[in-house]
């Protein structure tokens, strides 16, 4: 059984994993880059190890350093979180060789699912529906034209090693096929060092729906239902929810079964996610498999009532799953909003900086997975995700209203965040009705980005408070002797203010 777990990650996910380890009574080791010395995951852990300079290429991504940290601290297992080394087959393999338990699948599953063309072939063979297109990388440009003729425009050209929207091209006209293939190839080459690209049918109103999988090392594989992740900006998820408004019970059941088939096809063990693309007619196609914990695993945890990190650790320990498919059900509705440090009015530009004040929402149905605190400087080197706000409601309507309330309570000063933007999404008609697809943000641009009218009263309030603070800072006091008695004279609070309206 695992005796000590090294968490090869940082930020909210490192803290989230540590929480479960603590509940299980398993000692933890935090690793950190130089800039992360005051980070929450370092403060949370009782044992820590510095793995080098701040850029992740010199710390969190360096296999040797992570292995060294595990050896030095006596950790016999490593949890990779998401991102960084979590989907690196060589890292999984290296852990095995070093006699360290990698809390995740083996190299075969990671490698097979990591290459999109191999994954497509494997899925086709297993009887899992994939988006119509090629199963080989494009070498002959004339062949490409033939294929596009067969499946019909529009099509997508995609990099085999791709991700995050890089090396992708949408082709609407036949004459664009060859230029697009070439452009995608060169972009893929530059980004991933691999110019293999393939062609897929383009789905017009796509829904991004994924299924959570758990598989033990004894051949038991189950799914924990779906997550709807269609609200995206720059191919990055912003809001996730479960259940999906689109699925019927029949389709849900069928997709779940197919997801289990897909995982079994690569002899998967651990927690994983099968991503599907679903059209308006509920045709669904395998898109890719994420062979790790997802950022949005939280909504599944809430409606299914299962701690997924705990399951991952149990699986890594070789224990059989105790959850049975027939006993699982979705209770109520859960939504997650990702709180990014970014300027939503300026093309979602990341906004690192120092957090000055945080006020977090609380109460029934609220969960926060975060890692920042007052005085913390968000480093420029990593992801702009600072917290995830997860709500639960008996119904979707209740969950949306609760999310609005929670976002209203959530205040972060010092940096720009996506909180206000997320509030607007909760008010957007298409979101409230549940009728949205991956084009949601562009389709609702006017509503989401228009500047809201402010008013003189609010502006004057802001002016008076700024005036008061400024004068207090300078020790100015105009009339009374102490302009800011608030700090010292608590007892004098609360005189009834005049009700006179001005």
């Amino acid at each position, binding site marked *: 059984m695992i005796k000590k777990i090294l968490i090869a990650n940082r930020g909210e996910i490192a803290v989230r994993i540590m929480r479960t380890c603590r509940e299980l009574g398993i000692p933890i080791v935090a690793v950190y880059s130089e800039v992360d010395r005051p980070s929450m995951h370092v403060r949370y852990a009782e044992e820590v190890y510095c793995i080098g300079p701040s850029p992740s290429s010199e710390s969190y991504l360096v296999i040797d350093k992570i292995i060294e940290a595990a050896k030095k601290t006596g950790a016999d297992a490593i949890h990779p979180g998401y991102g960084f080394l979590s989907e690196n087959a060589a890292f999984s393999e290296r852990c095995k060789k070093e006699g360290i338990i990698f809390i995740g699948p083996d190299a075969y599953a990671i490698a097979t699912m990591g290459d999109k063309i191999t994954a497509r072939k494997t899925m086709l063979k297993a009887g899992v529906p994939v988006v119509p297109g090629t199963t080989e990388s494009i070498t002959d440009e004339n062949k490409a034209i033939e294929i596009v003729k067969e499946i019909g425009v529009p099509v997508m050209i995609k990099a085999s090693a791709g991700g995050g929207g890089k090396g992708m091209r949408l082709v609407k006209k036949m004459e664009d096929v060859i230029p697009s293939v070439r452009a995608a190839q060169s972009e893929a080459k530059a980004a991933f060092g691999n110019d293999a690209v393939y062609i897929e049918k383009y789905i017009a109103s796509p829904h991004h729906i994924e299924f959570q999988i758990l598989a033990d090392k004894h051949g038991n594989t189950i799914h924990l239902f779906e997550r709807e992740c269609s609200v995206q900006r720059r191919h990055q998820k912003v809001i996730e929810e479960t259940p999906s408004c689109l699925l019927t019970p029949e389709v849900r059941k069928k997709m779940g079964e197919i997801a289990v088939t897909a995982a079994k096809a690569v002899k998967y063990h651990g927690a994983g996610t099968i991503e599907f693309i679903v059209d308006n007619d509920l045709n669904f196609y395998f898109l890719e498999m994420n062979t790790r914990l997802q950022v949005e695993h939280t909504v599944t945890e809430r409606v299914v009532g299962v701690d997924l990190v705990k399951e991952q650790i149990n699986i890594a320990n070789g224990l059989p799953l105790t959850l049975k498919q027939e006993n699982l059900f979705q209770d109520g509705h859960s939504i997650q909003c990702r709180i990014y440090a970014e300027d939503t009015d300026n093309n979602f530009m990341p906004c*690192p900086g120092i957090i000055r*004040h945080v006020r977090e929402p609380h109460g029934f149905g609220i969960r926060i997975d975060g890692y920042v605190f007052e005085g913390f400087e968000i480093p420029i080197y*990593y992801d*702009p995700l600072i917290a995830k706000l997860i709500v639960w409601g008996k119904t979707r309507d209740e969950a949306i209203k609760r999310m609005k309330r929670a976002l209203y309570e959530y205040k972060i000063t010092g940096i720009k965040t996506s909180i206000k933007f997320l509030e607007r999404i909760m008010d957007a008609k298409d979101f409230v009705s549940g009728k949205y697809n991956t084009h949601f943000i562009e389709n609702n641009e006017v509503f989401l980005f228009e500047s809201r009218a402010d008013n003189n009263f609010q*502006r004057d309030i*802001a002016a008076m408070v700024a005036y008061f*603070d400024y004068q207090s800072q300078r020790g100015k006091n105009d009339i009374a002797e102490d302009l800011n008695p608030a700090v010292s004279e608590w007892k004098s609070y609360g*005189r009834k*203010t005049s009700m*006179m309206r001005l």
Partner: protein
Amino acid sequence: MILELNIDNKHDCKVELLKREENLITFKVDDTIYETDIVKVTEGVYSIVVGSKSFNIEIFRGENNKSYEVKTYQHTYKVDIIDAEAKYLQNRTKGLDDESGIVISTPMPGKVIKILVKAGDSVKEDQTVIIVEAMKMQSEYKVKKDRIIKEIKVKEGDTVAANQPLIIVE
């Protein structure tokens, strides 16, 4: 004392404290008089009651202590205190700009990934001169008109602060 304030770089207003009795303060903002009950509840947070309306206001003082981020329920306002010194600096900076050239900088901290020009280069409208990365996102900075590169103040790999001058063009 009357202070001039600018809000969101567009609205100017004059604020005056007319009367104060402990936390009860009468303000005049331009021509409107407000009787308020204002208390500092904790560092960076004020509670202000006007009539029966209550506002929880979070503020953040910028580096020069004169530029505020003020969060009400619906809005985040940028409030600048315009005193004599600020006016003087404003004018002086404007002057500097004209004399010493135009400064290229980034609104966020980040790391310089690539500098595509060197001092003395002539660059065309919309030409990218520098690429800065923050949080896995690269941003390209371009010149808006045909320019000549006067000075390059950073090198590739440097970590830069928000608004730090990177390249001076003229």
